[in-house]
């Protein structure tokens, strides 16, 4: 039942016999309170759903970020390991004790040529 038909019925109740009356009937479709409530609830649900979808989607990125961060950490760690290994291989002690260094001949100091 709509709000307009309710008004019409009420008007008919006060009309007497042979009395000309004008039948008011609204041509526009206006939603009643229940329909409005339901519409609002549906709208709220849709908005909620939209929110949840977006939150879930955003949170899904968290795992991607987490995975990428782990990769970054791992790569940094590998880089650091390589840096340490490289530095050790080039250390003076290692160079001094290398086969090449052992085969070098030490030279006596020579005087500098002066003008």
């Amino acid at each position, binding site marked *: 039942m709509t709000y307009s038909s309710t008004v019409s019925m009420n008007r008919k109740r006060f009309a007497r016999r042979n009395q000309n009356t004008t039948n008011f009937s609204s041509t526009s479709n206006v939603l009643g309170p229940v329909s409005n409530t339901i519409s609002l609830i549906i709208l709220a649900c849709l908005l909620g759903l939209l929110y949840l979808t977006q939150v879930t989607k*955003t*949170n899904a990125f968290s795992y991607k970020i987490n995975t990428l961060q782990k990769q970054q950490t791992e790569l940094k760690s590998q880089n650091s390991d390589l840096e340490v290994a490289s*530095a050790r291989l080039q250390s*003076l002690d290692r160079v001094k004790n290398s086969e090449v260094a052992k085969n070098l001949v030490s030279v006596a*100091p020579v005087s500098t040529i002066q003008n």
Partner: protein
Amino acid sequence: MNPSEKEINPKLRIQTWFAFLVFIMSIFVVRLFYVQIIKHDYYQKAALSDQLKQYELPAERGTIVAHSSGVLVPLVLNESLFTVYADPKFIVDVAQTSTKVSDILGGKPEDLRKLMEKDTRYSILAKKVSKEQKQKLEGLKLKGIGFRETVQRTYPQGQLASQLLGFVNDEGIGKYGIEQALNETLTGKPGKLKAITDAQGVPLASNQDNILVSPKNGSQLALTIDLGMQQQLEDILKQGLEAASSKSGGAVIIDPYSGAIKAMANYPTYNPSDFSKVTDLSVFSNAIVSSPMEIGSTMKPLTLAAALDQGVVNKDTTYFDPSVWVIGDSKVVNVEEDGGAATRSMKDILQLSLNTGATWLVMQMGGGEINEKARIAWHNYLVDHYQYGKETGIEQGYEAAGSVPSPTDGYGLNIKYANTGFGQGITATPLQLGLAISSVINGGVYYRPYLIEKYTEPNGLNKDTKPVVVRNNVVKKEVSDTIREYMIETYTKNFRAYNSQSSNVPRPEFNIGGKTGTAQEANPDGGYYTNIFNGTYVGFVGGDRPQYVISIRVNDPKIPGYAGAKAAAPIFLKLTNMLIDSYGVTPKMH
């Protein structure tokens, strides 16, 4: 159609259902009101305790690099290592597990077995385990064995420059050397992550209240040290000390025109990676900056410079040296063989290393005798000109200031001050000695010493260290020239004596100057040991102007002869040759 159904008013039915729905909804509303409004704080706390996680994001400690053949190479880096622990509750077969672990980590299985049988849930089996070892252990899938990652300092150059660098203890705090002096700069500032996480602890991006403060890593330090020079200094020092039968000593090489330290070493030394295994804690100290000593006759060029600078003597002054001065109840005598009574020049005071000559110089500061005027004038030079008795400010932990006696307070001040003229009764570190001599031979500028050439912040910003002048006009330029000339002559005259045990060739094309020092070791109970002497040598090498100043200390050498000449000077000769041959000392042109 059932007549009973006919009687039910549809409107009533709707109203009933509506009322029922409202009732149900009201229950929800009431419950939600209770949970969300009345018990809000309680449930919020409960939820956050599960979901909200706070992490401290550790800052990476700054690395340390140094020069090597013109490029900067790492001296101290960070490395991820692992602590291996056991949870005895979960170990199924202790014997088998301990054997397998010892196969990879080394050590005795029995020792590991004892650790695995401890009545605890966390028993450390090994520290500083490498990534490769950890991966091997992981591959065995042993139950009850766990790993904890720790970032440790690693030293690719081994024990090179260890006392200069210091180490980082298990709490992550720098101890000794640069690590202690610049602990804050190296440590950086940890960051913070406060976030809502899922059950696995992964931070959820959707929470607007997540807080992330990135850590500020420590600065990288570039040293003034040249690694090649440092290595050679350590080798030469060790050989020199062994040749002199000395158990310990140190040396430093300084750029006299900036205060930059080019190399600094002590012996014995230690491996900073294994600092926890060191039993003699004295090896941690960088004695060059932390252990003051009586510097002996290496003080004499400074005494002469002060007298010349005050104008109480000049270059051509001569005097009659009686070879003994009686001051109060004490006598000042010479220890050198050629220090008899005679007329002496200023040059002789250095060349013959005359204690009586140095005492006479202090006497001239007081108008011919050691009195309050002389003491105050000499004290002024020691403290305000040569900066003795003050920390130099070098980036090293536990720097010592040394001591200079008060010129006005105390007993026996005159003999005390007579002694300071030749380096006794006053203490200074080899670094202070080297810097004071640098200021006297470089024209009269005292530079603050520094080891850090450049600070590089994590964002790449560089901050270069500029030489800092502590004092100008330490001595006048002409005094500086005179002292330089006298030190060259002293070195040249004594070269054969210094070189008697080795075969260094003379290098006449360079200007090399220096002065020996031999001082009795002070007895902590008063007086001096009669059988313990320390040798020192301070000198320079360069062309028309000095390029490097070298200060050497040899503790208690056990060879015949004076410690300065027989133990410290030979090390100086080798170091000057090393610098000439490998580090581009420019020959003199005039």
